[in-house]
């Protein structure tokens, strides 16, 4: 019976890994992250950023703009490559274009939010800061290395007016954008103001006897279980309400919006273990206020079709990414049970340059769909990988997939692409190493 028990144990490991992730923690970060991603995709026109990337723009503007652009415009991996190709071929400096190419996948809002919740905020912050610094660094280096070619290109480039196009982005768009980011931060930041309980509420219901015990066996809290139920409920409701939202709202659209707001509110309070006393936390209060403000501003300033596009883009990302993510988490749960800690710890257990390089190489050669690299990273962390090499892996994985290297090669030519890949490898290794060092010092 050995193999059967083995397989069952494995499946159980995957399953509990999944439950662990789906609970309060991750919902709190992924739900607003998807909404933000959809928002940026639908509401922020590319002209708002591309106007700063032209050949005439000063370096002090184009590089930061490229970094911001990478964050705001490149949410979907499918948009990064045509955007990169487009801005470069139409006259953006090589440096700014490379910065955009690098920062886009590195500072992807979904990945950052998920990294923060699943691995730690130090990580997410390091990922953001180091990606931007190194993105600009790599861009500048490449612009310098290829300066002769670039000078020739700039002289030949016809002024095609692409970078002169501007659009007036209404203030409400930026306002709601910042509010949505606030929702994400308020929902996930581990700070006393937010996690401290302001007052307690005792639920006026009695929990059925065995329920709490059964949930504990499954390593679930009642709050976590309720949230998972809610998540399962949202899936079909969202499908009914959002699949054709571009053609019109229906009552399911409103229900899905309410359910999404509900998940945020349900995940915020602090439930005392093993009882039905609900602590109203600062987080809860903050979320209520923010959600009300966002709802009011959006209802007043945005037209129906804009909200429809926002909902559609959010839904599209969820459809594209979430199912694969579930599979990824499940596999990572299983991987954690099978992979020998010895291997992980020998290769990457300490913060050496070599270990960081291994992290990077692993990211290059193992392909994982968007976001799946995060549960895999978590698995390695649990198996004993040091945080330095882990960051190196997380930085390199979205950047250097074989597919994106091939396409970049067609756009830039083999020489420049080879230089880019080498630079990314070096910088990711260094970034991980520095991060590992910084952690031991702080």
């Amino acid at each position, binding site marked *: 019976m050995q193999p059967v028990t083995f397989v069952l144990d494995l499946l159980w490991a995957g399953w509990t890994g999944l439950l662990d992730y789906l609970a309060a923690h991750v919902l709190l970060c992924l739900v607003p992250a998807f909404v933000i991603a959809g928002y940026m995709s639908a509401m922020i026109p590319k002209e708002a950023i591309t106007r700063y990337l032209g050949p005439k723009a000063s370096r002090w503007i184009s590089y930061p703009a490229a970094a911001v652009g990478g964050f705001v415009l490149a949410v979907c991996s499918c*948009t990064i*490559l*045509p955007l*990169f*190709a*487009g801005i470069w071929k139409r006259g953006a400096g090589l440096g700014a274009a490379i910065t955009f190419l690098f920062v886009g996948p590195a500072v992807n809002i979904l990945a950052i939010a998920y990294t923060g919740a699943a691995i730690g905020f130090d990580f997410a912050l390091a990922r953001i800061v180091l990606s931007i610094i190194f993105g600009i660094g790599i861009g500048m280096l490449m612009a310098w290395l290829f300066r002769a070619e670039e000078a020739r290109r700039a002289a030949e480039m016809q002024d095609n007016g692409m970078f002169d196009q501007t659009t007036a982005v209404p203030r409400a768009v930026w306002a709601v954008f910042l509010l949505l980011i606030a929702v994400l931060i308020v929902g996930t930041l581990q700070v006393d103001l937010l996690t401290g309980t302001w007052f307690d509420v005792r639920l006026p219901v009695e929990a059925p006897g065995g329920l709490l015990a059964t949930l504990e066996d499954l390593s679930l809290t009642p709050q976590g279980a309720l949230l998972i139920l809610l998540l399962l409920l949202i899936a079909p409701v969202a499908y009914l309400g959002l699949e054709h939202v*571009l053609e019109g709202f229906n009552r399911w659209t409103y229900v899905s919006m309410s359910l999404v707001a509900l998940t945020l509110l349900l995940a915020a309070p602090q439930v005392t273990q093993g009882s039905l006393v609900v602590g109203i936390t600062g987080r809860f209060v903050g979320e209520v206020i923010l959600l009300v403000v966002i709802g009011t501003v959006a209802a007043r300033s945005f037209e129906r079709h804009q909200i429809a*596009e926002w909902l559609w883009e959010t839904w599209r990302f969820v459809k594209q990414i979430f199912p694969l993510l579930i599979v990824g988490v499940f596999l990572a749960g299983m991987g954690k049970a099978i992979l020998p800690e010895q291997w992980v710890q020998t290769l990457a257990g300490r913060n050496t340059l070599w270990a960081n390089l291994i992290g990077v190489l692993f990211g290059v050669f193992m392909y994982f769909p968007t976001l799946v690299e995060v549960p895999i990273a978590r698995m390695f962390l649990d198996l004993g990988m040091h945080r330095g090499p882990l960051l190196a892996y997380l930085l390199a994985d979205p950047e250097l997939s074989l597919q994106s290297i091939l396409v970049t090669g*067609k*756009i830039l030519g083999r020489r420049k692409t080879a230089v880019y890949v080498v630079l990314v490898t070096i910088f990711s290794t260094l970034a991980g190493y520095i991060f590992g060092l910084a952690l031991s010092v702080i």
Partner: protein
Amino acid sequence: MLSIKVLGPGCSNCEKVEAHTKQALGMLQPEGGYELTKVTDPLTISEYILKTPGLVINEAVVCEGRIPDASEIMSWLANALETAEN
């Protein structure tokens, strides 16, 4: 003959554009026929547009970065037919 290109690497947005385009073509039934292609290569896409999805009729970009509905597409197709005749 009308040349129509749907630009997009294969995610649900460009598929919706393609579906709406086929709807519009079905309703319009352009004389002289048409040729509908899906362009997925990022390099070729970037020659027309920056932000996917996109729609190109007779080598002119009519739509970029959003999903037009079938009636909009019909009016663009009709315009293109008219310009082609003149």
